[in-house]
C-alpha cells in the first residue's frame, strides 16, 4: 500500500534554532513530491516540487531535498512567522498526502 509518513508530528523550536522535517514514502512509481505550508483556517500553500533523487529547492529559510525513499525540509534560523503545519505529498498517479508536521517557533 502506498504510504506517506511525516515526522515528527509536532516540533517546537526556539527562534534561530535550525532543524529538519522528514517525509518518507513508499510508492510504486514516484512522479513528484510536493511540500506545502498550511496556516490555521487556510488552504495549503505550495512551496516546492521535487522530481528526482538528489534534487534540491530553496526558498528563503527553507530547503527541500529528495532521496529515493524520503525528503527533508530543512529550516534554517527559523522565525516565529515560520510557525505552521508543513505537509508533504507524493504523486504516484494519485496524490497522497502525509498528516503533516506542526511546527511552532518560539520567540
Amino acid at each position, binding site marked *: 500500500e502506498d504510504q506517506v509518513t511525516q515526522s515528527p508530528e509536532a516540533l517546537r523550536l526556539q527562534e534561530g534554532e535550525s532543524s529538519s522535517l522528514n517525509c518518507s514514502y513508499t510508492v510504486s512509481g514516484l512522479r513528484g513530491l510536493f511540500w*506545502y505550508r498550511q496556516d490555521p*483556517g*487556510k*488552504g495549503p*500553500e*505550495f512551496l516546492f*516540487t521535487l522530481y528526482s533523487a538528489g534534487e534540491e529547492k530553496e526558498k528563503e529559510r527553507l530547503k527541500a531535498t529528495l532521496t529515493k525513499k524520503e525528503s527533508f525540509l530543512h529550516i534554517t534560523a527559523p522565525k516565529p512567522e515560520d510557525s505552521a503545519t508543513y505537509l508533504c505529498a507524493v504523486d504516484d498517479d494519485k*496524490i497522497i498526502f502525509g498528516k503533516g508536521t506542526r511546527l511552532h517557533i518560539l520567540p
Partner: protein
Amino acid sequence: SAVISQKPSRDICQRGTSLTIQCQVDSQVTMMFWYRQQPGQSLTLIATANQGSEATYESGFVIDKFPISRPNLTFSTLTVSNMSPEDSSIYLCSVHLILGGYEKLFFGSGTQLSVL
C-alpha cells in the same frame, strides 16, 4: 500561479441538511479536485471534477453523498448531502498546473464545516 476563490469559508449546519461549496478559479483548467481534511488527518481526495463529464469518485465516496457540478472550465461545486456530525471537516478544492516545467498544486482557502 492560480487564484482559487472558495466559499463559504465556514458554516455550521444542522444534521440532515445539505451544503453546497463553490470553487472559482482565475484560469481555465481541465480538472478540479475536491479534498477533505479531517482533524489531525491528511488530505483525502474525494473526487476529480472534469468539465463536460461526470466526476470520478475515490473509494469510500459516492455521488449521492457528494454530488459535484462542473459547468465550465473555471467553476465547480461540491455538495455535502444529508449531513451528519461525521461530515464535520475542512473541504478544499484544488487545481494542478504545470508552471516552469514543474507540476504545482494550488488550493482554495477551504470550507470549515461543522455539523451539529
